[in-house]
């Protein structure tokens, strides 16, 4: 990137994890995955990963098992809504998972 004069004449940031701080602490609901219901976990191979596709924050890892980076997950619940296996439930922060 080459710039003229003031380096930050307009607002911008580099593409980096955590540019805005650990936004996960804004969350009031937390997604919890039940791997016994999750399709890739059951099949032990890459399967639907719809949660990964739909997460607006890009904080879900398409791995087996599927992982959510709770440092940045904002708790929107889109993943829970889209999961065809109903493997994700939203739990109020500070309450028990089980």
């Amino acid at each position, binding site marked *: *990137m*080459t*710039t*003229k*004069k*003031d380096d*930050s*004449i*307009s*607002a*911008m*940031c*580099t*593409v*980096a*994890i*955590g*540019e*805005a*701080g650990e936004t996960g602490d804004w969350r009031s609901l937390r997604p919890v995955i039940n791997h016994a219901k999750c399709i890739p976990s059951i099949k032990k191979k890459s399967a639907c990963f719809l949660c990964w596709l739909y997460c607006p924050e890009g904080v879900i890892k398409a791995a087996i098992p599927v992982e959510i980076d709770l440092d940045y997950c904002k708790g929107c619940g889109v993943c829970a809504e889209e999961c065809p296996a109903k493997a994700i439930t939203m739990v109020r922060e500070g309450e028990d998972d089980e």
Partner: protein
Amino acid sequence: MSNVQIMTGNQAAAIGAKLSNVQVVAAYPITPQSQLAEIISQYIEGGELKAEYVRVEGEHSALTVCISASTVGARVFTATSANGLLYMHEQLHWAAGSRLPIVMCCVNRGVGAPWTIFNDQQDSISQRDTGWIQIYCRNNQEILDTIIQAYRIAEEVYAPVMVCYDGFVLSHTMMPVDIPDPEKARDFLPPYQAHTILSPEDPRTLNPVLFPNRRANSAGVLCDGYMEMRYKLQAALERSPAVIEETSRRFAEVFGRDHGGLSWGYRREDAELVMTGMGSVASEAMQAADILREEGIKAGVVGIRVFRPFPAKHLKEAFRGVKGIVIFEKGISYGYEGALCSDLKAAFYGSEHQVPVHSYIAGLGGRDVKARELADAARASWQEMQSGIAEKPTTWLNCYTG
């Protein structure tokens, strides 16, 4: 060698954009701007202007296209009027906040409701706080020349510029216009250098949400907060009068025409009564000054060319020594008074030069404003001022208010 042709204000604006070698144009047609959009699309279609014309479904998108193209380094142009400009409102702020040197023509027209297609300046006046530089033109030559100047100003200051001219009164009226030599225009206007060149190797997220306070980014570098970014826009606009004046001076050197940087004067030197306004109403006032001079009143005109940034310091000089000011405005800040009137009075606040200011709202929705009517109003005010009436309520000129 001069190349004088007879043309409308819209045609002059289109030639101004062509001579500025704009690369991307996105405009949505609206009366009285439509002819301008048509002529530019003909230039592009016919290969006379190597630019991309992006067709859009409305003005909000037109300005959004310009914002995007300007961000990646294209010189862009758009134009609109009235409700079209209001539809752009959100993106006007976005363009200025992103510090993009977009140039737009506002072909001034009254805003609805009630519906009108005719001229006043309520459209651009109501957008004065969006961070754009606003320049008001008084004839077709000035329109053409100001567009070329506007790119130079915008690209130096990194702020968008609105070139305003009165609908129909200028946009559809034929006048002789000297077309600058394209080579000279090219020399006057160096290629646009974007403030940030984006590249795939070093990507950036533009205009992310900023937090109230300054904070370190992921690399630990302290970054500006929202308030700092906004301060920078204000500071740039505060510095811009010097750039506008310098550009005007340089333009006069190269092309032999000086339209005044921040303001212009007519029979101003020994004038006691000075009429003022922006755009065509100010040029009409020149004739009114002649009428009053014949009657023995020492009248003159100060035409205000730049409304934002408001050149308060400069105008205090321009009105030095005058004994009365009469303002004619084609717009109003509803619930108070003409916006120019408020700003001008504020410029004199605390100074030793306290001068009576009478304000007239004139020519809304295309109502004709004749030089004779301006002279009558100024004469009446002059008599009142001399009998000690320094202030009076705003007068709606030639309007049935009974």
